[in-house]
């Protein structure tokens, strides 16, 4: 097991916040495009649902790692 020093955990927190910002922007544009141009809700809704659930899972992983090391 690595012993995390404060700078490393701070780096992880900064990276987490950057990823959060990027993912939020990406999510906004993705949802906007699918809702504006998607042909049928039969495809739009599951696509957005799967995307959001997956994103939340990845953020849960990152968040767990950050909280563990802080």
């Amino acid at each position, binding site marked *: 097991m*690595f012993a995390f020093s404060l700078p490393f955990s701070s780096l992880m927190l900064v990276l987490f916040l950057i990823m959060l910002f990027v993912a939020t922007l990406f999510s906004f544009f993705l949802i906007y495009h699918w809702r504006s141009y998607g042909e049928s809700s039969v495809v739009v809704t599951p696509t957005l649902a799967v995307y959001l659930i997956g994103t939340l899972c990845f*953020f849960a992983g990152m968040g767990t790692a950050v909280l563990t090391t802080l």
Partner: protein
Amino acid sequence: MKPFAERIHLEQNEEIIKIVRKHWFILMRDTAVPLLLLIVPTSVYLFAGDVVLGIPLLQHFHYANTGALFLVSAWGLIAWMMLFLVWTDYYLDMWIITDQRIITIDQQGFFRRIIASFRYERMQDISIEINGFIPTMLDFGNIRAQTAGHEVDFRMNGAPNPRDIKALILEAADKIVAERHAELHEAGFQDHRGGL
């Protein structure tokens, strides 16, 4: 959400005959890299355990290490977003074949969307091209429609069943041209064979 026909501004009495998207093989080809980027590091992280893979750095890259958890999650998120960008690009690219014209929609990323249309009366030629072993076996290829004037030709690469689509377009075009001729005839115009 507005109905699709309203969002693409169909004319009155205009009906959609078919919506064509690229062949599923194109989607599979384009998602291969993001999927690999998503699956490989995640698999190593979850299943490597204490197994030494022969690479010193990877000895600690497993589920017991929170730093590795962070890296895999961040990496996975990036690959996940790439995957959905590819899927968005694939799904929002389409040719809409109506009974009066063809509308082409080309989504290039998030910040570029090209929508063009041409009426069948302006179409001069339509050709298809199927190149290669896989396209021949799976029946997909390129469709190219040439229009009158100096406009750019319309192309769809990787269209499924290109022969059927070409036949559909020609049938719709023949019908619209015949209707226009009938309208002109009713309006009293004589063709050159009829004289005055």
